[in-house]
């Protein structure tokens, strides 16, 4: 599109918090360059306060609505989201390609992302049946264990694969009804912007997904240490980042930190990523007792 006769319109990427698209309160931005080294987009660089705002929006707005919706509805919303990704395939592939992927790889990643979301959508109304059960306790009691949403979950998405990693991490966290506050590394910021644009017009309640683009090292501890974050799920973190995250999580209220380590082609395997044992990381199991007698 660039040529002597026309000035490029550089994309301005913002954060996605509580269903709105604010700039960072810090006013900071960073740039994304295309393969030729030209500025393609300017992105908001999230700060500690943005992280806090996102967590508050997730807890106050997104979580009650999303966790309160039926499993069937969540499945439909996620499926609808897969449809939206499909219809934005060209954009998404173009962005990937512009920032380093080959055309074939970009198409493949977008397709895998759509398929991943379709797969995850189908989990919503089945997870309880696989992860929950009735426990045969000794005595006249009904006792069952059910997986429930944990609440607000902090997610750190990987630098690679940019789109599939983002879609997978956010999507699987949403399945049981959690609200997501995701830190998206600079490398995948462009994908986060498009995701945010799609979410804004989707059926996903405002605040259910919040996307913070920026510097993972800077935001990690604020995410891990916030008292309203009930678990942290990270991918592609370095050893030092994992330690920082766990330390942050331990210092305030305790919460589990799960750092997944996927090798290259793991991300495309549903058996790995869209598995009940990944989903198990973002649910809380509740055991309920009740007498069964007259």
């Amino acid at each position, binding site marked *: 599109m660039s040529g002597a006769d026309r000035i490029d319109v550089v994309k301005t990427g913002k954060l996605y918090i509580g269903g709105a698209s604010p700039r960072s309160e810090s006013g900071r931005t960073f740039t994304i360059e295309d393969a030729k080294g030209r500025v393609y987009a300017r992105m908001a660089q999230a700060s500690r306060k943005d992280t806090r705002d996102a967590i508050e929006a997730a807890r106050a707005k997104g979580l009650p609505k999303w966790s309160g919706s039926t499993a069937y509805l969540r499945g439909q919303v996620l499926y609808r989201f897969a449809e939206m990704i499909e219809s934005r395939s060209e954009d998404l592939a173009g962005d990937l390609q512009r920032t380093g992927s080959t055309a074939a790889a970009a198409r493949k990643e977008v397709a895998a992302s759509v398929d991943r979301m379709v797969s995850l959508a189908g989990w919503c109304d089945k997870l309880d049946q696989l992860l929950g059960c009735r426990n045969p306790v000794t005595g*006249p009691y009904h006792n069952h264990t059910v997986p429930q949403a944990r609440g607000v979950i902090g997610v750190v998405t990987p630098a690679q694969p940019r789109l599939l990693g983002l879609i997978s991490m956010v999507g699987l966290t949403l399945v049981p009804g959690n609200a997501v506050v995701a830190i998206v590394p600079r490398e995948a910021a462009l994908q986060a912007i498009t995701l945010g644009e799609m979410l804004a017009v989707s059926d996903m309640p405002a605040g259910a997904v919040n996307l913070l683009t920026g510097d993972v090292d800077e935001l990690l501890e604020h995410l891990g240490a916030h008292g309203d974050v009930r678990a942290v799920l990270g991918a592609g973190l370095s050893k030092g980042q994992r330690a920082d995250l766990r330390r942050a999580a331990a210092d305030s209220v305790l919460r589990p930190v799960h750092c997944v380590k996927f090798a290259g082609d793991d991300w495309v395997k549903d058996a790995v990523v869209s598995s009940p044992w990944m989903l198990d990381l973002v649910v809380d199991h509740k055991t309920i007792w009740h*007498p069964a*007698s*007259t």
Partner: protein
Amino acid sequence: MLARRAAELAKRSIKTTAKAQGLRMAVSMLDLTTLEGADTPGRVKALCAKALYPCPEPLAQPVPMVAAACVYPRLVPVAWAALRDSPVKVASVATAFPSGQSGLDLRLRETEAAVAAGADEIDMVISRGLFLSGRHTDVVEEIRMVRAAAGAAHVKVILETGELETADNIRRACDLVLEAVADDDEINHGDVFLKTSTGKVSPAATPVSVLVLLEAARAHARATGVRLGIKPAGGIRTAKQALHMLVMVQETLGPQWLTPTLFRIGASSLLDDLIRQLLKMEHGRYTGMDEVALT
């Protein structure tokens, strides 16, 4: 929690001095009962003799008489004659025991006749048919009328818990008895008893059903200050069961209920086991079946 609490109280370890006290207490609270079609004057006389002298031999610490002998109305005169000079009461089942399935007028006349013949206490049955068909106000009214017919005699209201089946039903039936006595300003402690069973239906006085009765009496005492009596009956055959009942009473209603005026156990063969246990404590050896006189 009912079953859990009842089971917990069954674990109280009542040994040595407590056991000696408890066994005697249980004897003194016994409604020694015979309610068979084959009952004869001879059988009732034997029962009354045992009520007066429960233990075949004198023990270092005397064994008390039982609280009452409980018989069918036709045999009240026999029991009255045998017991009239003693503190042992004559109790009689009236009101078409055990089913209660006669017209109300007949049941009231039977009550009056039993009292006239010398019964100090009337063990009435509620109409379970009325209760289970939801005619609760009629149940309340019948209890009031039987009490009126019984005059000065104490009335034990048999709920037949085995037919009511659930703890909720048992409690609701208790509440009807509470309602029936609520407007009686003259009532004394122990004038009215809640009684589990006729002994003709199984299960009878299960720990859970007794606990429900105790809780109802506790609620009534809290609300009105009036202490209703409690009488488990049916299926209580061992000293251990009887001691468990005493523990339940003490820990649910308090020791003030541990008196024959407020607590009775209806049983026929229980006395033999109580006596055998007392003899064992006295002699340090187990007593043979034949060493205890037949009831």
